[in-house]
């Protein structure tokens, strides 16, 4: 136990050192509550009965001492350095955060209008935004999640997107969270709040990447509030550098008839975890969640997706795919919970894995918890390598094994990339993601 205390000493010192002068009381209280909760919870352990962390060991994160400097200002970074790490397109609005702090110079944000406001959270808090106060940290419960509690304790800056009722924002909003990853291990706490009011529509892209090869820890939380009949397309690219630790969560709440679609692409970090929770809290609301994770070397990537059907006539579609190579390990944990009130729910959940190496491991746990009787729910999971029959068929048409397997792996992944509606992002994924897939020679 004493060991645990020493481990959090550094966090404790940084927590108290965080400059929060001039911040409203509600935020101070929130941070304090979150900090107390973090001390109680600590980092998750794979102790018996902790089903959420059954296959991922967070000890490497807990063991390391990460420093946090909330005052750091991104100096000496040019657009050229940052652009190499992330997708970008001139047409997009872009907010860049370096080690969790807003970097105005690197950003190209639109003018705030009646329709949409894109700003840093810090600005929004300081301007006493009511929207921020009523939504920030109200949707991500940290009672049972140590990482979310820690992020909230260090809540200072982040991205804030507010789409007014009925507004249709065509320009994708790109939120970029970069970690410098210098010699001393540091932690940053990226945070985003996206509020799409009734009947509005917007596309949000989140990118996570590292600029240097050092070990760092990125602990992010995004909250999305989708109003009645509103529609949000959300893409998330996790391309942290290979020594990094990344634990991110997103919590999405939908009102009546709201729609949320997401595409989560992960291939970075030594240890990466993404927790996506969608609460279908309005009748007729729907979500469509796609994901692609690609692992190699000794990487460990974990996607944990929770969908809660709380109201009737709600729909969810979950399609995740994994490609595993080397000595890597991928984990998929999916939960679909259908509440008693959520009659006429239609839910499907699928996780498919291509295991390309004899040393890789995939652990998949797509669970269903159903308390309503008039529902249509199904799930499926597969794991295996490329179908030998298919390769044989392709060879009989004159292809060599390499070409055949490359084509099949590419095809497997492109099904997910094809779901991306934003054309510039899709083009990026096609050139950056699909073309770097392992093209393993299989032995037949």
């Amino acid at each position: 136990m004493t060991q645990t205390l020493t481990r959090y000493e550094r966090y404790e010192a940084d927590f108290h050192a965080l400059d929060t002068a001039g911040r409203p009381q509600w935020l101070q209280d929130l941070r304090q509550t979150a900090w107390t909760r973090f001390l109680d919870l600590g980092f998750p352990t794979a102790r018996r009965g902790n089903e959420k962390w059954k296959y991922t060991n967070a000890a490497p994160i807990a063991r390391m001492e990460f420093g946090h400097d909330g005052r750091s200002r991104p100096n000496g970074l040019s657009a050229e350095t940052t652009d190499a790490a992330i997708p970008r397109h001139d047409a997009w609005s872009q907010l860049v955060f370096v080690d969790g702090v807003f970097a105005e110079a690197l950003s190209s944000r639109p003018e705030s209008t009646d329709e949409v406001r894109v700003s840093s959270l810090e600005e929004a808090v300081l301007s006493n935004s009511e929207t921020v106060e009523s939504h920030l940290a109200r949707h991500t419960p940290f009672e049972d999640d140590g990482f979310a509690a820690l992020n909230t304790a260090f809540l200072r800056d982040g991205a804030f997107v507010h789409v007014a009722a009925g507004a249709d924002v065509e320009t994708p909003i790109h939120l970029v969270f970069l970690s410098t990853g210098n010699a001393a291990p540091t932690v940053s706490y990226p945070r985003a709040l996206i509020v799409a009011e009734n009947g509005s529509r917007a596309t949000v892209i989140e990118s996570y990447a590292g600029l240097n090869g050092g070990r760092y820890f990125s602990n992010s939380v995004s909250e999305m509030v989708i109003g009645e009949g509103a529609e949000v397309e959300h893409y998330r690219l996790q391309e942290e550098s290979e020594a990094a630790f990344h634990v991110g969560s997103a919590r999405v709440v939908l009102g009546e008839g709201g729609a949320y679609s997401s595409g989560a692409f992960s291939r970075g970090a030594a240890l990466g975890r993404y927790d996506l929770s969608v609460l279908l809290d309005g009748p007729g609301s729907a979500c469509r969640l796609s994901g692609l994770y690609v692992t190699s070397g000794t990487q460990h990537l974990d996607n944990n997706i929770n969908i809660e059907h709380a109201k009737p006539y709600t729909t969810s579609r979950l399609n995740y795919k994994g490609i595993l190579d080397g000595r890597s390990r991928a984990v998929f944990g999916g939960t679909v919970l259908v509440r008693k009130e959520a009659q006429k729910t239609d839910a499907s959940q699928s996780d498919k894995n291509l295991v390309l190496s004899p040393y890789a491991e995939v652990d998949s746990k797509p669970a269903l918890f159903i308390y309503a009787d008039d529902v249509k729910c199904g799930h499926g999971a597969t794991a295996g390598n490329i179908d030998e029959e298919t390769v044989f068929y392709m060879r009989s048409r004159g292809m060599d094994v390499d070409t055949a397997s490359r084509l099949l792996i590419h095809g497997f992944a492109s099904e997910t990339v094809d779901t991306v509606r934003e054309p510039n992002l899709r083009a990026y994924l096609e050139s950056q993601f699909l073309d770097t897939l392992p093209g393993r020679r299989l032995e037949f």
Partner: protein
Amino acid sequence: MVEQQVISRETGIEDTQYRWGFELDIKSDVSPRGLNEDIVRLISAKKREPEWMLEWRLKAYRHWLKLDSQGPQWANVEFQPIDYQDMIYYAAPSSQSDGPKSLDEVDPEILEGFNKLGIPLEEQKKLTGVAVDAVLDSVSVATTYQEMLKKAGVIFCSMSEAVQNHPDLVRKYIGSVVPYSDNFYATLNSAVFSDGSFCYVPPGVRCPIELMTYFRINELDTGQFERTLIIADEGSYVSYLEGCTAPMRKSHQLHAAVVELVALDGAEIKYSTLQNWYPGDKDGRGGVYNFVTKRGKAQGRGSKISWTQVETGSAITWKYPSVILQGDDSVGEFYSVALVNNRQQADTGTKMVHIGKNTRSTIIAKGISAGRGNNTYRGQVKMMPTAGGARNFTQCDSLLIGDECGAHTIPYIEVRNPTAQLEHEATTSKVSDDQLFYLQQRGLSLEESNYMIINGFCRGIFKELPFEFAAEASQLMRVSLEGTVG
């Protein structure tokens, strides 16, 4: 003949759907309440066990003391903590305290009791084609068809007898599939197991009849801890059935059994269970806690182990009949129907651990939830790095009746071999109004219609059961679902 084999015939208990709830009026030899080393020694002494057996029990008991006294917490079930010191660990009919006897010496009250359960033991009435080992509380009271089995070379007797008469076999295999340290309940069982069945089928022998153990809890506040060990030697085959009931009691009874199966090269074991322990009343009072560890080791090349279970009873079911697919080309199967009604809870499924090359497993699980019951399928499929070319197919279907119940599916898929392939599918549905109306329009009552649809839902599993058991299973479903429609 079929008529006679139906276990669920009227027993004269009124106002209840559980027709097996009567109590036998017999004198019992009962150990003092509570658990300590003396109790473990007492049980061992009652059984006149050799020293090694006692040592093994004590090792288990000492290990058990080190475990969290609440038992495993991960299952999706809720119950008040069990007071292990307020339970009786050994009860045997006084007349049976010397172990199984010849049939003429068995207490007529006991014989009549088993008659009522539809399991006649007397020579002239006994079931055709099924050899029965009847276990009452902690002991085996009789085993039928001894002569016929002996002729075939098959050993089928109570565990107590096996420890006496076949110590080498028991010593070699007991704990070889479920080690005493396996889990909380299995460890407890290893310390205090009272009786159970033992079966050995010699090489090349196809067991000429079905073997059956019928378990009956009778004594109040008594835990039942039987232990079953089945060994199928090279190229042999055996089909084994298990049935169980208990009287209606207001308090809960604990049943923590262990079953170990070993199949050597080319051998096949088919293990079927009709679990009909007392489920408690509609408000969840009473009922059996069925916390059971069942595991088979498909040890030999090309061996096969198949579990079929129909679980309609018990207040809480916690069991995962599993197969360790060790031999190359070995096969594991799990076919299950689990039904919960009223306040019943079930957390049941299987584990398929693929170690050998080209091993195959199939899992078909059907869950039915009614009343305020909660039904969880929990199944693990593990492909080890050595399991090249292994295959698994899993299908889980849930059916909900009413909106107060729950149906949950939790698969754990762990793949560490790129040439292994695995597929998991699950669906959840309800009996639709359209289906019910369709059947009613053809002249069937609402209850009958509902029953026919549910029976159809379970058909794939029932067909895996031996014929007599299939009829019985379908009967059990009907009784368990009474009052869920309308």
